[in-house]
């Protein structure tokens, strides 16, 4: 299988502080990768670099055979192919859930309105909130909002989905409904990069695990190896604390 995402020697600084150090990463089509690590280790920054919500200063990021650079035209094309789900949902509060989902298909993919709304309803059904379509985000529970956000990203029919701690802002009992949707999505063959601390989810879904600390990828391994015999001491320490 080909690499759909490639990161080569990526370095990034916030002013003088280096957040990403020599990141090397390859993601194959349909591969599921879970990134974990302590807070401030650069996990979120890493996946935000993949659709250039953050820009990197050194190295190469290639997504779907296109290098991410200053050229904004390319970036918009790549962003349309890479769906992203945020910790804080970031739904558009002035639009109904249905409009949230159909907005980008209409204006970015130029679908006719009717078609975009059909697509939106399809994806809302997929995340099981089709009955909430006409409500505003403020009227939904956290779990429903996050599922709506996933549906919104899916409406762009992305090749890759990025999840930035999708369950961290949720009440414990709502985490499961969101994870169920994600597991479902993974089984459907989506390429996924997930930053999360839900190790149960990671064990069930991930092909590869990545552990990051202080801006570096400390360990990358097959999921089973990662949990059964981690190599680095730092990983061992981290796992012993969260498992």
């Amino acid at each position, binding site marked *: 299988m080909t690499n759909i995402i490639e990161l080569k020697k990526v370095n990034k600084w916030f002013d003088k502080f280096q957040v990403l150090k020599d990141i090397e990463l390859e993601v194959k089509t349909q591969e599921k990768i879970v990134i974990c690590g302590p807070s401030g280790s650069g996990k979120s920054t890493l996946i935000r670099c993949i659709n250039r919500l953050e820009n990197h200063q050194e190295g190469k990021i290639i997504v779907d055979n296109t290098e991410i650079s200053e050229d904004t035209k390319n970036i918009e094309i790549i962003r349309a192919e890479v769906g*992203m789900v945020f910790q804080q949902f970031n739904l558009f509060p*002035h639009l109904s859930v249905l409009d949230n989902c159909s907005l980008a298909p209409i204006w970015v993919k130029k679908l006719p309105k009717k078609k975009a709304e059909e697509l939106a309803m399809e994806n809302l059904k997929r995340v099981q909130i089709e009955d909430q379509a006409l409500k505003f985000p403020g009227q939904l529970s956290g779990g429903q909002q996050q599922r709506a*956000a996933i549906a919104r990203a899916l409406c762009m029919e992305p090749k890759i989905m990025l999840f930035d701690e999708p369950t961290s802002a949720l009440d414990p009992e709502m985490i499961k409904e969101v994870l169920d949707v994600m597991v479902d999505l993974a089984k459907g063959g989506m390429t996924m990069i997930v930053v999360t601390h839900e190790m149960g989810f990671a064990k069930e879904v991930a092909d590869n695990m990545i552990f990051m600390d202080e801006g570096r990828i400390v360990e990358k391994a097959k999921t089973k190896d990662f949990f059964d015999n981690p190599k680095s001491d730092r990983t061992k320490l981290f796992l012993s604390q969260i498992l």
Partner: protein
Amino acid sequence: MNLSILKPKKENLQSCLVVGTSLFCFGIFDIFSSTFLNYNITGYLPGIINYFSPLILGALGLYFIRIEYSGNKTLDTINKNLNSSNFNAVLSLIVIFVLIKYVPPTLNWTFFDANFVGNTKEDCTGDGACWVFIKVWFNRFMYGMYPNPEQWRINVSFLILLGSIVSIFILPHKFKKFIILFLLFIFPIIALNLISGGIFGLKWIETGAWGGLSLTFIVSAFALIFCFPIGVFLALGRRSDLPAVKYSSIGFIELWRGVPLITVLFMSAVMFPMFLPDGTYMDKLMRVIIAITLFEAAYMAEVVRGGLQALPRGQYDAAQSLGMGYWRMHFLVILPQALKLVIPGIANTFLALVKDTPLIFVVGLLELAGMIGLAKTNPKWLGMAAEGYVFAAFVFWVICFAMSRYSQNLEKKLSTER
């Protein structure tokens, strides 16, 4: 000595009520008699006590009737709303006294002693306001020096405007878009041609003759329509990453915000023509409208920028992650939210704009307040300043209050909160 007997309690409700009410009524009567009967009941008391006696009596009275859970519904309501503590009781009393002292004279001046009949100043024989002044000059206050036989043209323009605004509220949603487009792009052209004339056999009427309330409307309407989009673009410009755009926006905003409107108007009328090449001419009214538009756009820009800054970063992230570029992100996601947030600020700027229009008198254009200023200097109508400006205040208040109510309505309608 046991003072607890003086403390109002539920057990002696009856006697407390009698004592309290009579003290309170005595206080009210004191202020009443000194205002209307010219007799000061407490005149024999030393100066300062005399002055405050209604307040002291009233406060004592209210103290006695302040009985919680008395069982009497009316009393409880009064206590809760007007008399919940000594401080609030004093505030309530002051409000009541001010109403007694100043409302009747005001009403007398405006209505009961006022003169409505007649055609000259000499017909005003009463003590109150001389509304004859307004009546005689009404036409000028509305239309300025616009010739009487042509005034139907202004009326027709405003009827079209009014008709379209009403139809926005009545017609179903899908027509709204067209009416708004008509109002923004076609109506101004129709109205301008109709009022100024010069085509279709309409007599040309130069802008110097325009005036009165209709000029207020014309200046404010054009300035409102244009200052809003300019302000939005300036606000976006000020937050731009491109240094040229950013610093020219900052420069523009700070320049216009730092200058008083009256000097801007003066320069637009007196200095600007000097910079124009020979032979070119720009209408004075047009220059004034442009000056006011740019001036208010600078304020609008800062109001809108406030809204932009209030939006969380996540909204930008989400819009970008869906593949939206700068303009789509701003027009679909950012501005709808930001503008909704700053509706009170926008309304504020619009109200200020409407109330700033009288300043165009410095360049010789006389809208409502300007016409009144002119009328009051007419030798036959000297001394009518109060009536004139009260009338102007009333008209401006009606316009501004309507705008304010509309903005509040809009806020409620656009709210998507729970």
